[in-house]
């Protein structure tokens, strides 16, 4: 449906235009006196040191990986869910149910695996901490 695609394009252009037009018009009205201190990175009043783009904790990438798997799953399940009612009313409901069920079970097993391996914990513990004895407390 080109009508819908063009609609999205026009809405996107309007969104961009909204920001761009306001910024451009206000360019003539707002002050613009950048100084070295003003243009510095904010670091709570201290002079900024180093680059902000240092090594990051890998857990963010882990979350992103798990996200990709489950997002793809959602993308695959939407079409089946879309026709499910039609299939039920047409008499093929049991087949569609088993399709969704098996697909969901595979993903639940995947979720369980990630969970058991401890990748869902924000602070991953590789080795179990030794239990504290009562005397120390």
């Amino acid at each position, binding site marked *: 449906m080109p009508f819908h695609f063009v609609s999205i394009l026009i809405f996107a252009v309007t969104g961009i235009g909204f920001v761009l037009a306001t910024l451009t018009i206000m360019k003539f009205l707002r002050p613009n006196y950048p100084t070295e201190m003003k243009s510095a990175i904010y670091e709570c009043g201290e002079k900024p040191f180093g680059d902000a783009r240092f090594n990051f904790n890998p857990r963010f990438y882990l979350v992103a990986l798990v996200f990709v798997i489950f997002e793809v799953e*959602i993308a695959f399940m939407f079409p089946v869910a879309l026709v499910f009612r039609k299939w039920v009313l047409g008499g093929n409901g049991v087949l569609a149910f088993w399709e969704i069920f098996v697909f969901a079970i595979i993903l639940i097993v995947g979720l369980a695996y990630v969970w058991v391996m401890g990748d869902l914990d924000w602070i991953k513990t590789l080795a179990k901490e030794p239990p504290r004895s009562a005397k120390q407390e």
Partner: protein
Amino acid sequence: MQHALDTFISNQFHVDAATWAWTQVIYAIAIGLAAFALVNFGAILAGIFSWAERRIAARMQSRIGPNRVGPGGFLQWFADAVKLMLKEDLIPTQSDSILYRMAPYFVMVGFSCTFVVLPFSHAIAATTMDLGLFYIIAITALIVVGVLLSGWASNSKWSLFGAMRAAAQIVSYEIPGGMALMVPLLISGTLSMQEMIRMQGGIQPEAGGNFLTAGGWPWNWNIFHDPAAFVCFFIYFTAALAEGNRAPFDLAEAESEIVAGYNTEYSGFRFSVFFLVEWGNVWVMSAIACTAFLGGWQVPGISLAALDNATGLSSIGLELLSLSFFVVKTLSLCFVVIWLRWTLPRIRVDSMMSLCWKYLVPAAFASIIFETVWVLAFARSPSFQLFFGVIMSIAAGAVPLWLFAKRTFDNIRDTGDRVDLTNW
């Protein structure tokens, strides 16, 4: 909208819309006008929300809130907007200036494009796209790109922390949010937002229904369709709160830890775009919840045929009625969103992640499987569905009322006080 435009063309220009050369131009102009109106609607609404939120927050904390500019401080949002637009637009010298300038556009496009399919009433919606719900899930992901871009380009430690947190949070909560929306999809069997609302019309008069079965009665809403849908409404609502970076999930902007999060370095209008979108998203998420679960614009007692076939003055009246039903439901949800922000403390980052992956995702999986069984069992018996809907909606109305009344009377009894309504 395409259909309405075709009718307009054949009435005004007496030509066939399918073959006329200027049809596409008329389409483009009409969509352009709709886009302009809706983007400005979103921006103004976001401004009004900023005022409403401050007033409601003040009321909840026994303060007064902004009350100087205009009646009841209502024009405060306008004054804030003017101030932000006239502020100096600072771009840090160490930042990646192109990406830094681009980030607000991504965020704004992710917001404005949702209005392509968001319904407002029986006839008012920019388009009736078949892919509506899926498209909204997809297009709102652009906001993550903008947020991540803003944090990365700023080259500030606070911004990068905030952006990484925001990205991890938003993508995580997209999973339960998307899966929870699959339940109304299973119930209604359509992705189009308008069709989804039409499916919540109950038993129509043509199918042997009457005044109490047709239209937007609570027992026809998807939320009271079955227990799984009821659970999924709350899963979606929680996930949407987290996706919109709303408290109690506003870790990306946790001012006590990381200054202002991803928009620390932004000032002036570029900064206000991020906040405009955050407040505008409150409306978007409420409208999606209203569409998918709360019966949308359906008017109690009015059948779809009555809405479709109305002409002249009565059609305008019915249209306004359906618009007001949709707006009232959506604004009530918006109020709940604001209410939650000033009630719940900010959640810790590890509890936020475990809430998503260890509670909401398994619950959403269970709901989907339950829902498939439910549809398999009861899709052919609308009368049982109606019966169950009545029971669930009455229970859902009665239980909170009873708990509220019990708590109130217990409190009054314990303190030996009387109900004081003079402080309103």
